């Protein structure tokens, strides 16, 4: 047989996958490895989709999505961030932000174009850049900075081949949010070097210490930004596969071509659920955010008590603590914690080399589970500590 596509062949499978296969076969596992809300979609949203199915909304919709949904998205973004998108030409309803990202990269990149992306990063970014013919150019962020993305480090990575900067704040996996000033500095770099900005803002509603800054709302950003967002995290709608991409018309026209020849449209009933979410979902969002915030405080305090240093995550529903005191690599830590204490976390190196030394813990699970998980982690850390002491004693004293 002839060989498969060499880009795909060269891309390693997701590091999360291997872990999932192990955890799935064990009993009594408390999982902090889940990157989605534990809430079920609010009932009024589910009910709206059921009603849509009863009315027979089972056909394709227009490629760009239901006009009513695009209008609701435009109104929503304007209300929250003051940004304006024409629902007739500048908004595409996509099958998850994943599709929106793929469309954006394929529409923007020529072979060999570089895309700057901060690491640790969501597992899909670098592979999607490669699949679209681009070259990922990674900028490291560090635990000591709380994984803040330093604009000057982006500047260092810009080359004549650079086409775009990919941003994701609040961040999966670190939970980091970026200050408005930092984001403005990054936008200014994009303006100065004529780069596109692709901003995945799927966690925009889940911020706890300061309000979210929409990249497209910043000075000079709108005309070069592809804004990606959706319903999965804010409204607990991951399985509905509905999201949206907003950009200036030439970009959305290119993206829409790919979309109409590949996905055609997002699921029809799910789009009606999304309409209901935007029009009547605000109270549910607030209640969920409040609950996440309580768990966040509870969990981060607990991690620190257990001996895992953790920067305060200002958004999303992840803590990304350092595991330095365990003396283990992030894969060893995750594997031993799973086998010894039946707690599943995701090793930080699944999100790129700069995630090494950390693990991602999702606190999108009930406080009771979090409390039990913390007790198990504390026990595990105690054993790591004892093991390290024993090793120290065995080692001969330096001469």
């Amino acid at each position, binding site marked *: 047989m002839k060989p498969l596509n060499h880009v795909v062949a060269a891309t390693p499978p997701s590091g999360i996958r291997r872990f*999932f296969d192990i*955890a799935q076969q064990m009993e009594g596992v408390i*999982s902090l490895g889940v990157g989605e809300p534990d809430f079920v979609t609010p009932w009024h949203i589910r009910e709206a989709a059921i009603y849509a199915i009863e009315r027979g909304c089972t056909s394709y919709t227009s490629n760009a999505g239901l006009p009513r949904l695009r209008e609701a998205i435009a109104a929503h973004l304007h209300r929250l961030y003051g940004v304006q998108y024409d629902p007739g030409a500048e908004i595409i309803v996509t099958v998850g932000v994943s599709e929106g990202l793929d469309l954006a990269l394929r529409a923007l990149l020529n072979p060999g174009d570089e895309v700057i992306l901060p690491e640790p990063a969501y597992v899909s970014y670098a592979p999607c850049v490669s699949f679209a013919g681009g070259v990922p150019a990674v900028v490291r962020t560090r635990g000591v900075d709380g994984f803040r993305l330093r604009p000057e480090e982006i500047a260092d990575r810009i080359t004549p081949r650079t086409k775009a900067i990919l941003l994701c704040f609040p961040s999966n996996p670190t939970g980091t949010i970026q200050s408005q000033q930092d984001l403005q500095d990054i936008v200014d770099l994009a303006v100065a070097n004529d780069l596109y900005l692709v901003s995945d803002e799927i966690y925009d509603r889940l911020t706890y210490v300061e309000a979210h800054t929409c990249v497209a709302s910043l000075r000079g950003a709108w005309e070069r930004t592809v804004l990606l967002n959706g319903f999965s995290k804010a409204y607990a709608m991951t399985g509905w596969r509905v999201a949206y991409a907003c950009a200036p018309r030439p970009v959305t026209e290119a993206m829409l071509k790919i979309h109409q020849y590949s996905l055609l449209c997002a699921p029809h009933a799910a789009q009606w659920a999304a309409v209901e979410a935007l029009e009547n979902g605000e109270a549910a969002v607030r209640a969920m955010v409040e609950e996440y915030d309580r768990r966040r405080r509870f969990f981060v305090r*607990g991690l620190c008590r257990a001996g895992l240093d953790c920067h305060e995550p200002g958004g999303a529903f992840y803590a990304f603590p350092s595991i330095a005191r365990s003396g283990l690599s992030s894969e060893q830590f995750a594997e031993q914690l799973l086998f010894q204490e039946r707690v599943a976390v995701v090793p930080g190196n699944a999100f790129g080399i700069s995630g090494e030394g950390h693990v991602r813990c999702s606190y999108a699970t009930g406080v009771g589970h979090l409390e039990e998980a913390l007790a198990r982690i504390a026990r595990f850390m105690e054993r790591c500590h004892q093991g390290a002491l024993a090793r120290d004693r065995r080692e001969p004293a330096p001469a």
Partner: protein
Amino acid sequence: MRAILEILERDARTSPERIADMLGLDAAAVRSQIEEWERTGVIRRSKTVVDWERYGDERVSAFIDVSVTPERGSGFDDIAARIYRFPEVRSVFLVSGGFDLRVIVEGRSIKEVANFVAEKLAPLDRVTSTNTHFLLKTYKEDGDIFAEADTDHRLLVAP
């Protein structure tokens, strides 16, 4: 501080330490706030939500619509008090609409509840009529859904 009450209302056994962690407060401050609320009656008492049917208990509840003649001076309050003092009576509400008081009565058998209505409630002065609805099945009570179990459909590890 309101958030403390919200947490306790959902689970009264949440420890002050846990509440403090959830809200970014000091455990001693949470404890003294709870004590103050207990003193001032903001927190009336704590109870456990029990699914008695699942436990295996045979219990009978009935919702009774009671029409009464209100009294000059006290309106419905006196007759309501005469009804709510019976231990068989779980709840009494004054409501608008086609009748006046909605009374919830609990007993060990249909006969016991029926006897209570016939011998205690209906003969009261100023009670002009009663309409008894026996409870057949509880789907949801005080915000708790009894009819279905919570299931987590998520995969254990996801990006």
